[in-house]
Structure formats: C-alpha cells, structure tokens
C-alpha cells in the first residue's frame, strides 16, 4: 500500500500545492481551481484502501461492478520555467469521529504526500484551509499565512491581502491548524522542507454550514496566482461566491424574521457588517460559545446519513 505513480515526469524543483476538504472547502476549491485552470495532468495516486472506506457501490443486474473510494491524486504541470505538482485529496483520513485528519493514518498520509514531494525535489509545499474569524460574509476575506520556518516570513509579508498570525488582533502570533494542513506543515518542517499554509477567512457563524465558501477560496487563489505570476479566470468562482452569499443572506433573513436565533446573535452578526477589520477586537471564548450553540443547532441534520446500504 502506498503511492502509485503511473509515470515519472522530469520535474525541476517543483512547487507542490495540496488541497483537501475542510471547513467551507476553502482549500480544496482554491487548489483544485488552480489545478484545473493550469490543466495539470494526473500522474499518480495514494492507494485508498488503508485510509478510506468506499463511498459508493455499483451493482448492475446482479453483478458487483465497482466500489468507489475517495481519491488522493497527484498531478503535474510546467508553466514557463516553474514546475508544479498538485495533490488533491477527496477526503482527509481520520481514525476518530471528526471530519478532519487525526491519528496515525493522517500522519502516514502526510508522509506519503511528502515522499512524493521529496522524490521530485520540491522546493516548497503550499497547503490551504480555513481561518475561522470575526468577518462578515459580505466582506472580502483576508488570507492568514503560516510558514513552517522563519525565513519565509519576509516573503509572506509581500503577499497581497495576507497577514501573519502576529498581525491578527489579539492572537499574538499564536494559533493552531487542525487536520492535514497543520500536519503537513509539521512533517515538512521535520524533513527540512519549506511549507506555507494559506487560510482564507470564513465567518465563524458559517463554520458548521454545509455550503462551500468560495469567496475565501478566491482570496487564497489570488495569492497563489500572484506568486506563480499566472492569470486565472475567476469568473466561475465569483459566480459561485455570489450564489453562496445570496443563500447566506436568505438563510439569515429567514432566521431573523422567524426569530430562529436570539436578537443578541443577530446583532453580533450585523455589527460585523459595519465594522472595519482593524476595529475588530478578539471575540471572547464565552461569546463565541454562546453564538455557536445556536448556529450549530441550526445546521444539525444537514448530513443525509439515513440512506440504506447494500
């Protein structure tokens, strides 16, 4: 079990971009949009059997045709003088009850991804995910950047619409990155490989929502496109972002009109709309807990897990 490469392209110091599902699917949408726009070609995969359960079975006229497992695929492309590798995972491996990677399997997966990075002498790895924060859904999300070593900080400071953890009000340069995004950064550090995690901001009241948050993916993608000096057509992402924003507006309007959430939560969300980022103080844990109790309740049951299995 492990990595299966269909071909071994000759790549020169490529950069690797990794995306997988997470909050608002911010990371995977950003990385996969970039992969699609640059028409990267698949050249390998991580065999799924030890990591994932099958998602679908296809039975036709009494014959088992296929089992479909989540894919973990590698792609490559060359743009001008820069070679690129993409890793797109359709799920994060987990041993517990969370949606996000943890445990031995996640560590194994991170190592397999970085085995490929090292095999092709990658100079840098980018991962992407979500930064849960006090931002209104109508605002342009910033990108939080976390490198795995100090030498990358000066470069990150030049990125547009991007901040380091030390630049976030009330954070003092501290924080945590859950799932494979954090793990990959750590394992890359252990191997002496440069890595940066780019996290698009998502309003904390949408973190449990079943929708994607393409607006934040777009912010991440803008940083990546600038870094690579490529032009990406973002119109599809813009359309999707607009649709999601409309859905969020409608959803909140319904809640407000039916008093589905308490007035104080509504006021808190509305306050964000009219507050500049610089004026936002850190939200206290107690305030967040109170708000999330209501928001989480609203999104419960969005998973359709009552389907029968055969």
């Amino acid at each position, binding site marked *: 079990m492990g990595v299966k490469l269909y071909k071994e392209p000759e790549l020169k110091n490529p950069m690797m971009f990794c995306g997988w599902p997470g909050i608002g699917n911010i990371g995977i949408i950003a990385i996969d949009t970039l992969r699609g726009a640059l028409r990267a070609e698949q050249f390998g995969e991580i065999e799924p*059997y*030890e990591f994932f*359960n*099958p*998602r*679908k*079975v*296809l*039975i*036709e*006229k*009494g*014959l*088992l045709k296929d*089992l479909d497992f989540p894919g973990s695929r590698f792609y490559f492309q060359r743009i001008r003088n820069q070679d690129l590798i993409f890793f797109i995972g359709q799920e994060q491996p987990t*041993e517990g009850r969370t949606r996000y990677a943890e445990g031995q399997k996640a560590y194994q997966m991170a190592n397999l991804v970085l085995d490929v990075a090292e095999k092709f002498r990658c100079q840098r790895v980018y991962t992407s995910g979500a930064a849960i924060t006090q931002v209104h859904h109508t605002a342009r999300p910033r990108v939080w950047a976390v490198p795995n070593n100090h030498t990358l900080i000066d470069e990150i400071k030049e990125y547009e619409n991007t901040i380091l953890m030390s630049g976030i009000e009330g954070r003092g340069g501290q924080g945590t990155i859950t799932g494979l995004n954090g793990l990959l950064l750590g394992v890359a550090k252990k191997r002496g490989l440069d890595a940066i995690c780019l996290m698009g901001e998502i309003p904390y009241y949408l973190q449990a929502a079943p929708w994607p948050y393409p607006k934040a993916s777009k912010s991440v993608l803008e940083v990546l496109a600038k870094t690579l000096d490529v032009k990406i057509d973002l119109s599809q992402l813009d359309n999707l972002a607009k649709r999601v924003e409309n859905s969020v507006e409608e959803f909140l309007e319904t809640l407000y009109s039916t008093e589905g959430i308490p007035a104080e939560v509504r006021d808190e969300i509305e306050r964000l709309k009219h507050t500049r980022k610089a004026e936002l103080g850190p939200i206290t844990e107690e305030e967040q807990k109170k708000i999330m109790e209501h928001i989480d309740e609203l999104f419960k049951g969005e998973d359709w897990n009552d*389907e*029968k*299995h*055969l």
Partner: protein
Amino acid sequence: MMKNIFKFFEQPQFENPSVIVGWNEDAGNLSPKVIEYLNRKIKSRCFCEVEPAGFFSLGAVAIENDVAQFPENRFYYSETANLVIFKGSEPHFEKYRFLNAIIDVAEHYCKAKELFTINGTISPVAHTSSRRILTVFNQQRLREKLQGYGLEDMTWEGRPAISSYLLWVARERGIPSVSLWPEIPFYLAAGEDFQAIKLILRFLDKRFELGLDLKELDEKISDQNSKIASLREENLDINRYIGMLESALSLSEEEQMELIKGITEILEETG
C-alpha cells in the same frame, strides 16, 4: 497472512469448503438467526477467532437487553457439511484489513472454493407476499452456477454495506462470492423475520444438501402470522396498510410508522 490477529483453537482438515458469512446485526435479525440455526443443525465447532483490538472500540462495553456485549468474530467448521461459517460484527476501524483477514482464513487456511454472505434488505413488501432473494455476485461464473435456485438479480448504486465491501475484497483475491439479500418487510426489520430466515436456510439446504429440518421455523412463522392476522382483525388501519402493501401500493411515512409501531408492539407483547 496476518497471523497475530487470529486465535486458533483447533486445526481442522478442510476439503475446499464453501464459506458462509453472517453478521451479528441485521434487518429482521436474519443473519444471526440463520447462522445460529445452521451452526446448531450441522453441529459446527469454533476453530478460530479474530481478535477485536484494532478493529473495535474497546474503550467501553455496550449493554444490550441488560447484558454486556463484546465483539465476537468467529469461524466455525462442520466437517460433515464441509462448510466454514463466519459470524462477526462490522468493525469500527480498519475495515479493509478486517475483511482481508476474513479472506485470509478462507483462502490460505481453508482453501475455500466460494463464499456466501447473508443479509436482509428492508423492503416495502407485505409479510404475506412471496419474498425474493436478491443477489449480488462478484463474478459471472458463480452466477451461472447458481441458476435454477430462484435467485433474482439486484441492481443498485449507493453506499456499500459491509457485505458488498467483502465481495469486492474477495474479488480482488480471486474468490468467487455472492451476497444473498432476502427481502424483509420493513415492519419486521426491527424484530425477527422467520419467513426470510427460512427462505435463506431453504436455499442453503438445497445448495449444500444439508438435510435441515425446518419445522421449528414453520411453527414460528405460523405463530407470527396468526398474531399479525389477529391484529389486522382488531385494527382496521393496520389491516388497510398491509392490504395496500399486498396490492403493491405505497404507504405514506406516517402510515409506515403506524404500521411499524402496531406490529412491533403486538409481537413484543406476545413474545
């Protein structure tokens, strides 16, 4: 073969047996009842078990019907019937490794020639209607071999059950396999469906020439049917709902719930 996860009690001699796999949890209690009945009638003996560590959450012990439970995954063998039977639970973790462990025993240890899995599929049929056994094969040859047993093809796309996953693993390992899915009326799914249990046992009896005496089950079927018939006489709504199912008409969600409640109550009350 992953030897450290098995505990062997005996070293029986096998002659290319068929393997029957049943699960501890199933609609209409079909799978456990079929396996228990079969084990008893063909006097099979446990020769091996799969250790639960690594596959099941052992941080707590589940209590069911006042009794503490523990995951049991055992292989049985009947020399006279030349059958290996596996009865186990769906693992919480490492499903792929667990299913490969089952196939390891079947392939390397028993040199099994074929594998059958037993599961019930919940269906909108009436208990009085004739039931079908729907089937899924992992290769065409076995499908052809089992023509003439009145089995019907299944067509389906969706989330896989553990048996479908096992069938796929068996296919990867070259073991011809079939899943047998008798229909269980949805209102009997939470209890015991003796009719479906008998249907599967009758198939196995014919296939393996076991000479099973199924009278015991006939009595249970007759008893269950008469309890439901009495309820139909007393409760016109229940009678109407079952009548609709008998005429292949569908019930609303509310009607289904009412039927499930009525049938479950009467069968539980009367034992």
